[in-house]
Structures are given as structure tokens and as C-alpha cells.
């Protein structure tokens, strides 16, 4: 059987009815494969600098070893197909894709025309079958999840407006997400594609949490009622696709647009799919970094890293970054973890979700931030709510309005401090930081338990931080530092260990 026949056979097998049958049954009826036997390589994009943390999480949750593309924010690992749903439970990854083929040393031809022709010819030689099976399985998993989730969401509709506090205005959500997709897809360079932070400020994404059962993440943005039906119908008909190309390197004779266009043309001829830039079923990824070429199929949509948060502030941290920072401080059961400058609460909320055996406190001096944090917690509670019994469930998190330079907490009462310090760009100023940082570190050392306490602090104002820290060697011992890229800025995440020395009492209470 030629590749193309095999591929179309696989796709032809699936129609709407199939989604009702158990998936394993469906795929095992094909004598050529069973879920356990198919091993695929999954690629994941992670916040740059946290590749090791992500690889660690993959090892822990999936048992797979990862190959790390260090400082490029990508890791690769193999899994058997039956574990696909679990892949979506990874908290340190922004986006997932299945690898079709990877070329570590691709020889590009001399001229632009020859190179592009070469890429076009490549299409029919690629092993599409298994990756497409993965894509198919993944789409089915997402569909089931959305249906289930829509039923829950409709009953807990918020009354507040979209712009203000993030309501459930689906039409706007869909448009907003489309805008983001277009925006993101227009960026050519590898690096800027990962700097979604600023562009996603307006986007509201609500997301489900996996709660230990076999459920998976999905994106609500693009999947409203109409969208779902369209996708369902599409399976009976022709699939829609797009090609996204990211290219980095000095010596290429072509642009990412050239490559995407020509590669896309070849894909269209090969599969007889229909090209659609915005409303696609399959997103083919063509990643070119110097001589490394990776062809993949996306398993997630752009907005995965903004889970948990429905109410955004001006500098809301990516949940994946928040997760990475929390993981760095190795939370132990019953640890009291606070974020004294929590803004909209991204870090404590991620903490309460992933480490429910710890106790999390979010605090900020800004009344709007505190309000947004409380709203985000509310949204999270609604998702966890048990509709039938009507009881409201709590999670181990609290919010307080306070001043970080004057924390109303008992001395040595906190185990871990994790926070995103003001960079001095969008919040505060560099000048203010000269006073703020030492005061912060001082107060944090007071409330942090000597000996066992630790702090994980993210900042871009590294100079100021280093200076403030240099005066506190007797209280804070510097551990590991992770260099990260936050919204295009070079920032650092510092891991500090609290020494055994008791902090000098500035104030007269214990």
C-alpha cells in the first residue's frame, strides 16, 4: 500500500459515529496497529530556561526520557499512543506537537527555486500515517472534553463583561483567539513566536484542570457550538489544514513564508485537503533552525499557557512559567507557600492546583490585583463545583491585601516564597526598585522559616537584585539560577535558601 492510500484509509475509517465507540476498539480493529505498539515522538515548547524542569515532569508523569533542545525552549520525548491523554496533563509545556520526521543535518540546495522544490518533493516521502493517527486520536479526545465541559460551563455563566473581568461571551472569545492565531502566525522568527506574552493580554481563556482522572486539557476559545459541528462534519468531508513555518538561520535562501506556501501546496496536492489559514483541522508545523528541519503536526492550539486565568492584569505570568518556578522550590506536603506580590494570582493558583497538599496565600497591595486574583480563584472553584449536590468546594488558597515591605505575618511562619518581582518596566520603576528590592528581601527573610525555608524569585532587574542580595548573605544563600525569556526580556529566576540565622527584629512583634 502506498503511503497516500494508507493515510486516506486511516482517515476514511473515521466518521462521526466512531467518536461514540470506545477509541481503543476503533483503532484496534485495524490489524496493523494497537495503541500500545505505536510509539511516537512528541515535541513540546516550554518557557526557555525551564527545559530541564519540563523534562523532569515528563519523566515523572510519563516515564519517558527527554531530548532537550537547550535554550531553545523545546523538548522531545517518546510515548506509546495509549498515553496520549496524559500528555495533556503536563503543566510545564506551552504547546505540543507530534513529530512526523526530524532531519538533523538537512542539506539545502543552492538556489531558492531548487530548495523549495526539494521541500515540496519531501512531502510524499514523509511517514505521515502514525502521526496522523495521533492527531486523529488527539482531536477525538479534545472533542469529548469540550462537550462535557460546555455542559458545565453553561450553568455557571458569569454576568461580568469580557473586557473587564472575562465573561463567557463566546463570539468575542472566538474572534479574539483568531486574532491571536493570525498575529502569532505572521511572526517569522523562531524567537518572537514564543513571545506571546504581550500579545495575549486581551485574550481570555478558561481551561479545565485534570483532577487525577483520565481527562485532558482543551481550549474553549475556538470551539463553540458551531465550530464543533463544523469539525464533526469535516471528518466526513475534506480536512482543512494550514502550514506554519518557523525559520531561523543566516544561510537560508528562502523565507518562512516561501517555505510555508510551497510546502503547503505540496501537502494540498498529496492529501487533497483544503487550505484554510484560520479555521483548520490540521496544523502542519515546519520548523527550520539552521540545518535542522522538523516536520510536525500540532496537538494544541496557541493559547494553552494561559490556563487557570480568566481575569488578566497587565503583567500576568504564564501558568507554565509559574509551574516551573514552583517546581524549582520542591514543595513538600503542608508547606506554606506565599506570593507576596501576586498580582492576579497566577503563581498561587497554579500552586493550589498542582500541589493541593500545600497551603497557598496570594497577597498584593493593589486593590485591583487582589480583586482579579479573587475572581480567578472563584472561576477555578466554579469549575471544581459539584453541580448535583450544590455544595461548594474549597481549595487551599487565600488572598490578602498587604504591603510587601510591611507583611502582617508572624515571624518564621512561612516555608516558601515564590514571586514575580516588579521588573521596573510595566510595573513600578527601576528607581523604585533600588529601595523596594532590599526592603522586600528583608521582610521575606523575616517571615521565612530559617534553615528549611526557600524563595524563588523572578526578576529582570538583575543588577538591582544582585546588589540587594549581596548585603544579605547572612540570611539568604544563593542556589540555582535559571535564565528565562519573559515577553522578550532577559530575566532570571533565583532560587534562594534561607539560612539558619534568625532575622534581626525590625519591629517589636513575633
Amino acid at each position, binding site marked *: 500500500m502506498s503511503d497516500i492510500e494508507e493515510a486516506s484509509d486511516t482517515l476514511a475509517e473515521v466518521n462521526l459515529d466512531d467518536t461514540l465507540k470506545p477509541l481503543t476498539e476503533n483503532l484496534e480493529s485495524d490489524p496493523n496497529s494497537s495503541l500500545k505498539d505505536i510509539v511516537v515522538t512528541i515535541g513540546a515548547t516550554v518557557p526557555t530556561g525551564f527545559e530541564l524542569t519540563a523534562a523532569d515532569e515528563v519523566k515523572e508523569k510519563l516515564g519517558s526520557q527527554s531530548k532537550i533542545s537547550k535554550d531553545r525552549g523545546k523538548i522531545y520525548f517518546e510515548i506509546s499512543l495509549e498515553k496520549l491523554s496524559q500528555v495533556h496533563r503536563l503543566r510545564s509545556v506551552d504547546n505540543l506537537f507530534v513529530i512526523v520526521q526530524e532531519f538533523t543535518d538537512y542539506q539545502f540546495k543552492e538556489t531558492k527555486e531548487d530548495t523549495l522544490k526539494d521541500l515540496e518533493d519531501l512531502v510524499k516521502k514523509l511517514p505521515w500515517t502514525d502521526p496522523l493517527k495521533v492527531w486523529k486520536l488527539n482531536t477525538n479526545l479534545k472533542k469529548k472534553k469540550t462537550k462535557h465541559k460546555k455542559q458545565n460551563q453553561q450553568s455557571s455563566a458569569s454576568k461580568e463583561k469580557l473586557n473587564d473581568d472575562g465573561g463567557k461571551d463566546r463570539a468575542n472569545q472566538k474572534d479574539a483567539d483568531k486574532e491571536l492565531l493570525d498575529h502569532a502566525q505572521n511572526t517569522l522568527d523562531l524567537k518572537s513566536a514564543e513571545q506571546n506574552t504581550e500579545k495575549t493580554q486581551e485574550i481570555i481563556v478558561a481551561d479545565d484542570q485534570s483532577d487525577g482522572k483520565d481527562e485532558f486539557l482543551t481550549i474553549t476559545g475556538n470551539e463553540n457550538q458551531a465550530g464543533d459541528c463544523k469539525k464533526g462534519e469535516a471528518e466526513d468531508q475534506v480536512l482543512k489544514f494550514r502550514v506554519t513555518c518557523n525559520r531561523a538561520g543566516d544561510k537560508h535562501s528562502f523565507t518562512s513564508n516561501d517555505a510555508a506556501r510551497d510546502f503547503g501546496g505540496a501537502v494540498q496536492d498529496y492529501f487533497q485537503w483544503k487550505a484554510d489559514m484560520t479555521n483548520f483541522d490540521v496544523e502542519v508545523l515546519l520548523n527550520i533552525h539552521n540545518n535542522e528541519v522538523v516536520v510536525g503536526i500540532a496537538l494544541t492550539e496557541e493559547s494553552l499557557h494561559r490556563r487557570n486565568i480568566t481575569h488578566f492584569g497587565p503583567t500576568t505570568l504564564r501558568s507554565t512559567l509559574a509551574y516551573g518556578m514552583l517546581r524549582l522550590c520542591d514543595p513538600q*506536603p*503542608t508547606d*506554606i507557600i506565599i506570593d507576596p506580590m501576586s498580582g492576579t494570582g497566577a503563581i498561587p493558583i497554579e500552586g493550589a492546583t498542582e500541589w*493541593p*497538599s500545600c*497551603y497557598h*496565600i496570594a497577597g498584593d*497591595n493593589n486593590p485591583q490585583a*487582589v480583586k482579579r486574583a*479573587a475572581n480567578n480563584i472563584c472561576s477555578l472553584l466554579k469549575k471544581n463545583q459539584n453541580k448535583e449536590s450544590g*455544595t*461548594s*468546594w*474549597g*481549595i*487551599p488558597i*487565600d*488572598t*490578602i*491585601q*498587604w*504591603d510587601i515591605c*510591611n*507583611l*502582617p*505575618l*508572624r515571624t518564621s*511562619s*512561612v516555608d516558601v516564597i515564590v514571586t514575580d518581582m516588579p521588573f521596573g518596566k510595566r510595573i513600578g520603576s527601576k528607581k523604585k526598585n533600588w529601595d523596594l528590592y532590599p526592603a522586600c528581601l528583608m521582610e521575606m527573610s523575616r517571615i521565612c522559616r530559617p534553615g528549611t525555608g526557600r524563595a524563588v524569585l523572578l526578576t529582570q532587574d538583575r543588577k538591582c537584585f544582585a546588589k540587594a542580595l549581596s548585603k544579605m548573605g547572612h540570611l539568604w544563600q544563593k542556589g540555582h539560577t535559571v535564565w528565562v525569556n519573559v515577553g522578550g526580556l532577559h530575566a532570571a529566576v533565583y532560587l534562594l535558601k534561607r539560612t539558619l540565622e534568625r532575622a534581626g527584629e*525590625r*519591629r*517589636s*512583634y*513575633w
Partner: protein
Amino acid sequence: MKLLTHNMLTSHVRGVRPGGGFPLRIQATEVKVNNVDFNQEFVARMIPKVEWGALLEAAESLGHLSDLPHQLPPEYENNEDFLRKVHHVLLEVEVMEGILKCPDSGREFPITKGIPNMLLSEEEET
């Protein structure tokens, strides 16, 4: 505001005697009770970290003292009955509206929608 949080909060008004700012007296006008998953080990390990007397006082002021003992029972780690009561008081009782009062200075910190506002004015800061 849960009582576990309250147990860590202290008044930081200038001039307060050492230890005088703790514990803050609660005057609640609205209290909510949630269901929170019971984790025996969590509660057992959290007890040494809390100020037991303050916790009892807070629970009592909210009418949720039930029959929690003044002294910690020996080997409470395995006493599920006892731990469930502690669990209830630590995590399930929430003050939504009310006031936290500094026992020394009398300064009142408001609690609105479950969030205590502990900000001080400039004169009050140390």
C-alpha cells in the same frame, strides 16, 4: 479568609508591644462553610505549625469551636475524629465579611468578600 490564614496574621501597627498584635480578634458578619477534601496527613502535620490557642479562640468567636479540646490530645496523629474537627476549623470555615481587630492598639482591619485588607496608613507604619 480561612482560619489557617488568620493563624498567621498579626497586627503590625507601630508601637504595638512584642507579641501584642497576635492574635487578631475576629468580628465576623458573614461566615461561609465549604467542603474541602480531608487529608489526614496534611492536618496532622499542620498542627505543630499553628498556634493552637489562637486557633481555638478564633473558632470559638465564629461559633465553630464544637468540642475541640484546649490541650492537644496525645498521639493526635492517628485520631481521625479529632483531626476531622481540626480540618473543619482550619480549612472549611471562611470569614467573608467582618473585621480583624488588633488586641493591642484596637486598630481595625476590614475583611471584604473574604479578603482582609492589612494595608496601613503612613502614620501607622513602623
